[in-house]
């Protein structure tokens, strides 16, 4: 059953060093505020999972929170590389990052299998690809009925899934809409679920067959308006494309990255203060 708590409390109580953590979002509703709070609290040795690791994963990796990453596409969408991810993989800074690399279809399947409490997922794919040569967790089995060969992967069962959503009601039921990505499956697959929301309302007033996470599957709901910045929340605010472009410069060098993280994340109390400080530093910038 979900409690409505502060993000600081939720991360402190529900994310543990060494946990397998999925902070999902397919360019929409990315849980940036929660990512910052994980960094502020100095969580270590996380096994991060995500189909599309982007800026917050770049930050977590660059700040030394993660030792392992299961993913299928790691980049700055529409911009280019994630420099901190690359630095960790190419040069082991600030620490080596073990990669478990899959394709999107396989990752999506593996979340579905996790949500369904199955130990593995089945995929028609990877024929001719080198990925199975470098990822021993991609295996093959034969269909017991047709003898076809199919790829299998271990289900994803995060210790904690963290997502951002538009609304929760006071009882902790969560509503999201628009581009859903794999958030629902990632939540259903997890042992614990943290959801930051734009708004807490009396009644969700959801349309029929809307995408809802009932309080029975949510561990904590945290009110954090704007918590998906620089991503967007459909119906609330749009994507801050210039920030994605600016991130390329911030993250390119270790020193500028560390200085930025110090000033904007480590030295701020929460995401609201982060937004204020960011506004100030952006106004000062040329």
């Amino acid at each position: 059953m979900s409690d409505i708590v502060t993000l600081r409390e939720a991360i402190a109580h529900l994310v543990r060093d060494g946990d397998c953590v999925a902070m999902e979002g397919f360019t929409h509703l990315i849980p940036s505020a929660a990512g910052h709070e994980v960094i502020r609290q100095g969580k270590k040795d996380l096994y991060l999972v995500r189909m599309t690791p982007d800026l917050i994963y770049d930050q977590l990796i660059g700040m030394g929170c993660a030792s392992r990453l299961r993913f299928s596409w790691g980049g700055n969408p529409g911009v280019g590389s994630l420099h901190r991810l690359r630095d960790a993989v190419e040069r082991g800074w600030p620490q080596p990052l073990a990669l478990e690399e899959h394709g999107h279809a396989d990752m999506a399947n593996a979340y579905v299998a996790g949500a369904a409490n199955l130990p593995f997922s089945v995929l028609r794919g990877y024929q001719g690809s080198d990925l199975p040569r470098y990822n021993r967790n991609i295996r093959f089995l034969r269909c017991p009925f047709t003898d076809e060969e199919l790829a299998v992967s271990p289900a994803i069962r995060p210790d904690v899934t963290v997502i951002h959503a538009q609304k929760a009601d006071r009882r902790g039921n969560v509503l999201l809409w628009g581009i859903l990505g794999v958030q629902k499956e990632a939540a259903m697959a997890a042992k614990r679920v943290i959801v930051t929301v734009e708004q807490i309302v009396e009644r969700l007033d959801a349309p029929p067959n809307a995408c809802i996470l009932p309080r029975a599957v949510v561990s904590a709901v945290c009110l954090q308006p704007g918590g998906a910045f620089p991503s967007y929340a459909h119906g609330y605010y749009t994507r801050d494309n210039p920030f994605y472009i600016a991130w390329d410069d911030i993250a390119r060098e270790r020193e500028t990255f560390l200085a930025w993280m110090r000033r904007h994340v480590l030295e701020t109390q929460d995401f609201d203060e982060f937004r204020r400080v960011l506004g100030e530093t952006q106004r000062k910038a040329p």
Partner: protein
Amino acid sequence: MNYTTNEIMTVAAARRLPDGAVCFVGIGLPSTAANLARLTHAPDALLIYESGPVGAKPDVLPLSIGDGELADTADMVIPTPEIFRYWLQGGRVDVGFLGTAQIDRFANLNTTVIGPYDHPKVRLPGAGGAPEIASNAKEVLIIVKQSARTFVKTLDFVTSAGHLDGGDARERLKIPGKGPVAVITDLCILEPDPVSKELTVVSLHAGVSPEQVRAATGWPVQFAANLVETAAPTERELSTLRALQQRTALAHGTATASE
């Protein structure tokens, strides 16, 4: 009418998308080409983006694969697992539209690493949806700028299967889709030879010489006997593309959305 090499690439790629086709669209050049097709000869093409929108009709090009514009204009928005499971693996995608970082003579694609996997020179973003698009879409179109760095003799990593080592290699592995049927670049159009499956230049864009293509290809590239010149963009194609890019630049505050 003057046009750039990027423009002819995008126009030539757009022309390959049949009207009514279900098209799995990657972000960037593929998305520009697919939407140009939709706005010109293929109004009934059904564009699918892996983040969930099916039947997206964006008025401005998305900067990311999950822009709100895609959801707002789509016939429906479904969870990503359904896109990959019910649509792509389900065999319902006619055309997969891909970009790439490296391509070899059999149109195999690398978007994973430059250099050895464990000690990469450049760590690229990775597979994304490409391996399963490459295997499960009924056919695949590739759109990529041509250079010797991109068109390489040997891939550092095969992320997504093209025609593997050529011939009937795909059939032997029982890969469902036909694989790449055309590679459209800023210099020319290449198609796999019907038998060997080796990429062959079938059409040169106006003003491009065979030498230029050879210099931009890391293997001794073959030219078709009946090599033609790519039809120039029509005024409608060009004005539609430019208007789309102008709307996009205005909306996103950047001129690079189509790159």
